[in-house]
C-alpha cells in the first residue's frame, strides 16, 4: 500500500511546487502505470516513495508506516527501484557484485546468494555477462541488469521508472512478461512509469500526472473506450489497434468487449463476422 496525502515537494525553496498537494492511494499488489509529459513529476514521485527525496508538506504512507527521516531506511528495504537512467544505480565493479550488493544489504545468506544471482540473470538473459563491468554494457543491457538487481530482492513494492525504454521490441515484451510472471507467483505492488501506452495497458490502473497532480485515473478499459477522449486530450493518443477499434465502432461495428489489443480486436471482429 502506498498513500500520498496532500503531498507537496519542490527541489528549491524558491521554485514552484513540482509535486502539488498530491493525493493518491495505491492498493497492495495493484499494478499501476504512471504516465505523464516530460517534466510532469513522475520520477519525483518515485523518489519520494523511496525516500530519496523528502517531501516538504503532507504525509506519505508506505505499507501503513508513515514515511519519516527516521524510518526511511527501513521503508526503503521494502522497495525495489529501477531508475530512469540505470547508470545511476550501479554500485558493483561487476554485474555479479552489483546484484549481490542489494542482497547483502537485506541480509541474504551468502550460500543462497550466488544461486539467486544466477537465476535472475538467466531470467533476464544476461548470465553470460555476470563477470562484466556494468558500466561497459550497452544501454539496453544496462537496463536488463538494473531490472534484475531490483527484482532479485523480491520487494513488496517494485518501481520501474521507464525501465525498458532502451530494449528492443522482443526484449521489452520479455521483461514485461517476466514482471507479470513474478507478480503471479508472488504478488507485489507494481508502479511502472512509462511513455508506452501499449505497456500501460497491461496495468490494472493508469494514472496520468500533470504538473505534479493526478489529472486522470482509471482502468485501461475505462480510459480507452471509444467515447472516452480524455487521454487523447491530455496528449496520449491511443495505440494503433485501439484507434482502429474506435474507427470500426464509428462506422457502425460494435465490438464487445471493446478491444485493447490485437488479439481482442481480432476475436471481437470474428464474432461479428460469424453473426452476419
Amino acid at each position, binding site marked *: 500500500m502506498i498513500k500520498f496525502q496532500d503531498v507537496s515537494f519542490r527541489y528549491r525553496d524558491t521554485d514552484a511546487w513540482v509535486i502539488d498537494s498530491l493525493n493518491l492511494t495505491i492498493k497492495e499488489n495493484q499494478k499501476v502505470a504512471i504516465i505523464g509529459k516530460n517534466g510532469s513529476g513522475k520520477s519525483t514521485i518515485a523518489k519520494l516513495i523511496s525516500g530519496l527525496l523528502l517531501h516538504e508538506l503532507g504525509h506519505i504512507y508506505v505499507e501503513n508506516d508513515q514515511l519519516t527521516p527516521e524510518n526511511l531506511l527501513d521503508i526503503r528495504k521494502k522497495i525495489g527501484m529501477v531508475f530512469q537512467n540505470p547508470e545511476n544505480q550501479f554500485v558493483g565493479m561487476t554485474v555479479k557484485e552489483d546484484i549481490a550488493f542489494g542482497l547483502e544489504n537485506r541480509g541474504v545468506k551468502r550460500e543462497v546468494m550466488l544461486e539467486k544471482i544466477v537465476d535472475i540473470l538467466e531470467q533476464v538473459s544476461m548470465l553470460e555477462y555476470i563477470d562484466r563491468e556494468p558500466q561497459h554494457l550497452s544501454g539496453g543491457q544496462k*537496463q536488463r541488469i538494473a531490472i534484475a538487481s531490483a527484482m532479485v530482492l523480491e520487494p513488496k513494492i517494485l518501481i520501474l521508472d521507464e525501465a525498458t525504454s*532502451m530494449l528492443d*521490441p522482443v526484449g521489452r515484451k520479455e521483461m514485461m512478461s517476466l514482471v507479470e510472471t513474478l507478480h503471479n507467483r508472488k504478488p507485489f505492488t507494481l508502479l511502472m512509469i512509462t511513455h508506452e501506452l501499449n505497456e500501460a495497458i497491461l496495468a490494472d490502473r493508469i494514472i496520468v500526472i500533470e504538473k505534479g497532480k493526478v489529472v486522470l485515473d482509471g482502468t485501461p478499459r475505462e480510459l480507452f473506450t471509444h467515447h472516452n477522449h480524455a487521454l487523447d486530450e491530455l496528449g496520449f493518443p491511443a495505440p494503433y489497434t485501439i484507434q*482502429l477499434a474506435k*474507427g470500426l465502432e464509428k462506422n457502425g461495428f460494435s465490438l464487445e468487449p471493446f478491444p485493447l489489443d490485437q488479439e481482442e480486436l481480432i476475436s471481437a471482429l470474428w464474432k461479428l*463476422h460469424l453473426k452476419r
Partner: protein
Amino acid sequence: MEITFKEVSYTYYPNTPYEKKALHNVSFHIPSGAFVVIVGATGSGKSTLLQHMNGLLQPSSGKVSIGDYQLPITSKKVSLKELRKRVGIAFQFPEHQLFDETVREDILFGPKNFGIPEKDMEHRLQEVIHLVGLDEELIERSPFELSGGQMRKVAIAGVLASKPDVLVLDEPTAGLDPISRVEMMELFSSLHRLENITTILVTHHMEDALKYADYMIVLSNGRIHSKGKPVDIFNNQDALKEVQLLLPESIDMFHKLNQTFDLNLSYRGQSPFDLAKEIISSLGEDSS
C-alpha cells in the same frame, strides 16, 4: 556527406580479459542526404557503429570514410575538429553529453567552439530550444537538474546548435513523452527534407522506422543482418523475429486481418480510421 564503412571491425579492450568484439566486417554505403534507420537487438552493436561516424571510435580493422575524412586516422596532422563540426552525434544517454553549468552554456558550447559570432548566439539558442520543444524557463538551470526527457531535449538542442551536415542520433526519442516523440521525429524529418541533412538514426520503434527511413540497416551480433527499404525489411517477418524485432503494430495488424478473414488488405500507410472503412467494406462484400 556520404558515409562508407568497408569491412569494419571493432573490439573493445583487445587482448585483455574484457575483450569484446562488437563489430564484425561491417560494410555499407550511405549516400549524402539519406535518412537511414538502424535497428537491432540490445547489444547488437548499434551504438558502437554510430560512434565511428565522428571518429569517437576508430575501427580496429577496416576503413570508414565520412566525406573526405578517412578512419582510422594514421597521421597526427589530421584533426577531428572539422569532422566533429560537420557530424553531430546525440548519444544514447543524454547525461553523457551534458557537462556545462547551465542549459544555455551547454547548448552553446558547440557553436562557441566552432567560432560562431557572439552576436548570433542568442538567436541560435532560441532557435534550437524552440525546434526541440524545450521550455524556455529551463535555460538558466543546471542541465543535471532536469527530468530525463528534458535532458534529452537539451542534448539534442546542443547537437543542432552547431548546424551539422550529418545528424547521428542514438535512440533520440527514448524517454520522450508520446507527443514530444512525434514532434522530434517530425523535426528530424523536416531537417532532412528541407536542409538535406544526412540522418542516421537508431530506434526501437519500428513504426518510426517504417514511417521515416529511406533505408534501413538491421544489425545482429555485430554483423549486418539485412539492409533495404523498410517495406522490404518488414516483409520478412521470420527474419525479424530471429533478431528480436517485431513488425510495426500497423503492418502486423494487416497481416493478422488478412490471415484470419482471408482478406487482401494492403498496407499503404493509411490511417487506422481509413483502414476501419476498408475492413468494413471487404468484410461486407465477403458475407454478401
